[in-house]
């Protein structure tokens, strides 16, 4: 597979390490009253859709960027890739 790195252009998937569901970026609030239950979901439960999926890839053999890659798990078509830090910051802005 080729992954369109937002800074480096098309890069071979072999340069990356795969993590999985981009929801792993949404670490629960440790101070919430039901924090333990929320962390259980966060740690152990993942979506595994057949179709469009947002997932985390790490450019380990490259610039060490974490990317959020939108990929169709059925066709392997890649619909986009963003820097995870941009996504995380935007998410924070949005939730303010």
């Amino acid at each position, binding site marked *: *597979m*080729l992954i369109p790195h937002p800074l480096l252009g098309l890069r071979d998937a072999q340069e990356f390490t795969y993590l999985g569901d981009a929801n*792993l970026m949404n*670490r*629960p609030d440790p101070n919430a009253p039901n924090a333990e239950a929320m962390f259980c979901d966060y740690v152990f439960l993942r979506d595994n859709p057949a179709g469009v999926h947002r997932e985390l890839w*790490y450019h380990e053999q490259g610039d060490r960027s*974490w990317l959020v890659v939108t990929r169709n798990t059925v066709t*392997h078509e*890649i619909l986009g890739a963003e820097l995870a830090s941009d996504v995380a*910051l935007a998410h924070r802005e949005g939730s303010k």
Partner: protein
Amino acid sequence: MTRLSGGLIDRNTSFSFTFDSKTYTGHEGDTLASALLANGVRLMGRSFKYHRPRGVVAAGSEEPNAMVELRSGARTEPNTRATVAELYDGLVAKSQNRIGSLAFDALGVNDYFAPFFAAGFYYKTFMWPRAFWEKLYEPMIRRAAGLGRLSMQADPDSYDKGFLHCDVLVIGAGAAGLAAALASARAGAQVILCDEDFRLGGRLMTESHRLDGAPATDWISSLEAEFETFPNLRIMRRTTVFGVYDHGIYGAVERVSDHAAEPGDKVRQTLWRITAKRAILAAGATERHIPFADNDRPGVMLGAAMRAYANRWAVAPTKSAKDPIAIFTNNDDGHRTALDLMSKNVPILGVIDSRENAPRFGDYDLFAGSMVTGTKGRLGLKEIEITNGGTASWHRCAALGVSGGWNPNVHLASHHRGRPVWDDTLLSFVPGADGPAGLIPAGACAGLGSTAKALADGAKAARTALSELGMKAPDIALPDAEDMPVSQADFWHVPGKKRAWVDFQNDVTVKDIVLAHKENMKPVEHLKRWTTLGMATDQGKTSNVSALAVMAELTGKSIPQTGTTIFRSPYTGVSLSVLGGGDTGVNFRPRRLTPTHTWAKSQGAEFVEVGQWMRAQYFPQAGETDWRESVDREAKAVRKDVGLCDVTTLGKVDVQGADAGEFLNRMYSNMMGTVAVGKVRYGLMLREDGFAYDDGTCARLGEDHYVVTTTTANAGLVYRNMEFARQCLWPELDVQLISTTDAWAQIAIAGPKSRLLLERVVDEFDLSNDAFPFMGCAKLTVCKGLRARLFRISFSGELAYEIAVPARYGNALMARLMELGSDLGVTPYGTEALGVLRIEKGHAAGAELNGQTTAKMLGLGRMVSVKKDSIGAVMSRREGLASDARRLVGLLPVGSTERLMAGSHLFAQGAAQTIETDQGWVTSACYSPHVGGYIGLGYLENGDTRMNEEIIAANPVEGSEMRLRVVPAHFVDPEGERLRD
């Protein structure tokens, strides 16, 4: 000899070769198969199950029968198709799957037991008695079945892998591929043209058709001359594109020197990973046969293959060129074989055409509305039975060409779960529209098989590819070529009671398919597994569609309703050697050498693999005969004098930024960031699920500058997790990370005389206990100006330091310390002594941090701060983890000098030894020269409150037991005074 006139062989270059130790002669341009046929050799192998005598069926990579062991000794390559083995001088080949000679194979008796080997026999027989399966039946079946044998020696050749990129990849250099490559190359695109053959031309080389009124080879030669002028075109002969992968990536194997006895200074094969913006699949088509009774004798082959041998290799597949040949066909194309053979003066018995209204194309005997219903000839075809209506007659016939129509080679177009679609006119599957993106099928593999249509379609595919890439396609002049329509009958096999082979290589007959149908193995996937149809090395290239047709007939469904199997790579077999691409032996994975490796090697160190690292394990001295002797000596030297150990492999992460301290507080369970400048703190890292993950130290070198260490094993993973936290969880923090594991050589200087030794290398640095106490750190210079970092930390429990210098000075610093410390008894120590020293001190390592243990179990429960959040903190408090009562303890054997084994399980004395009564396990064990016996560490239920209790360590694997006393987890200097000294 059965050489005919003409052909693309060089009669001036003769090659000598052997088959089953008999010497023959062939020519340059021959394959092993064509050369054997030219020598009148028709018997080339034995079938898989029944050991039936077999000859060559095809003239290309689809060959199911003629498989040989090529070469000898370590280079022996089993299951090589003689049809694609390019002849070279000195080639050595052996037939396979036989006991005794090829002509007399003892396992030929299997054929007489054929009723026992019907479809699914494997699942039905050999069921009883049960114990016989493993000891008797399976070894017996495995010996009887199977094809070639491995040499059981290491492959002496080298392999390589490479990466290529292009605009247009053209797969196949037949009519369509050549036209596509020409158009693409003229347009200026970067083009790669691959063909599995050693010559360009595909079927243009094997047909007698003319282009612009001249032999097709003239056109190919003129193209090859023009191709030479294109710097943007790369031609790869002997290269099979075997698979389509995501996003325009294609796998290909180039057989660089398979056509030589030995590769010399070249690699044997290269695995190419080709990234192509567009690909044109011009893979051609494969002829299918028509199953009839006893259709598997040597001499019965595909009609187009017979034509190919005559036209390209100038051979007739008979004992003598005077023997008559017959053709059995259900279509017009079959008649061409008769015409081509006649033009080479081969006697023709006639053309047997299943169609009542069969057309006649030449002056030969035509058996219209007839079928071949039987054959004779044990080791080679002698007679055939021709049946017309109810009348059967036997005819002398040395070879029979069978033409059942063409199957487009849809394989690559059907990767990625693309489904081929049925074409009722062509009576074959053609590529579907849902094939791999960017792949354009053209020519015969798209169902356009006449020469003129293939040429035009290749050019059209190039135009499509180029326009999609925004390039202008030039008009190319294509030569005039034949464009004969081919009429064909919907006729798939000759009905009858005797065995009619569908899949030659796996010995699957029409009867087997009928049986599978009877036993309700109707879906094509079941059919395949029940009968093993299409599961041999040829993957059913000549059999799958015919088998579907038989099943369709039985079920009353159409062929497309019956289904197709899913196509997967590789198109033809790929050797594991080339997939490894040379990554064998020491090159299997990267090897990392420590900065003191050269020095350690010069000292005669034994090395051990620690992940990718090669670390010095111990340093044997003259007179030491056992590793334990060396290790004991090294460990004692550290406790008595001073020892040196390369600890570079521990991960080092440089953490900088205004929020670096806050970041570390969130990564580590304890308050890591508040360590004072110039101090080091021990830290514990959890996984987010609450289990202990990794430990290390954090040295604060400046207000905004920390260096943390990780265990050797987790160096890469911890760094990855830290980057994840920095980028994905807390991007708002001002913190930067870089791994500096390889940048600094780090040497532990441990032992009571370590300060004395260190004083001799530092440049005016006060090492006194007051000025530089335990857990101090500093930047300084050593050896008159070399920048260094010094940490007063101790893994051994002795007064100890770790000194880091730029990695390139590692060897020099080690040598200097050894030289300066000779009067202090300085001793290098390896990982074994390092392990002994840390077990003696009860320090956790990989065996204790195995991913199943908690901070509490380690006795570090208080290190999980409740004042702040950190990775894993919330989950570490969940009940299941918090209530785990096992604790790290020391273990001493009682009344035994036997070796204590790590991994032994712990039980109360007198208790049954079951999972329910299991109380923990021994994590680490070693011989301690300071205790004078074996010692161990382990996790024990309520271990912290069971000091001095005697328990049992059971090793059920070896059936041994040992009594142990529970002691505190430090065997040396329990108060920890030495390291603060």
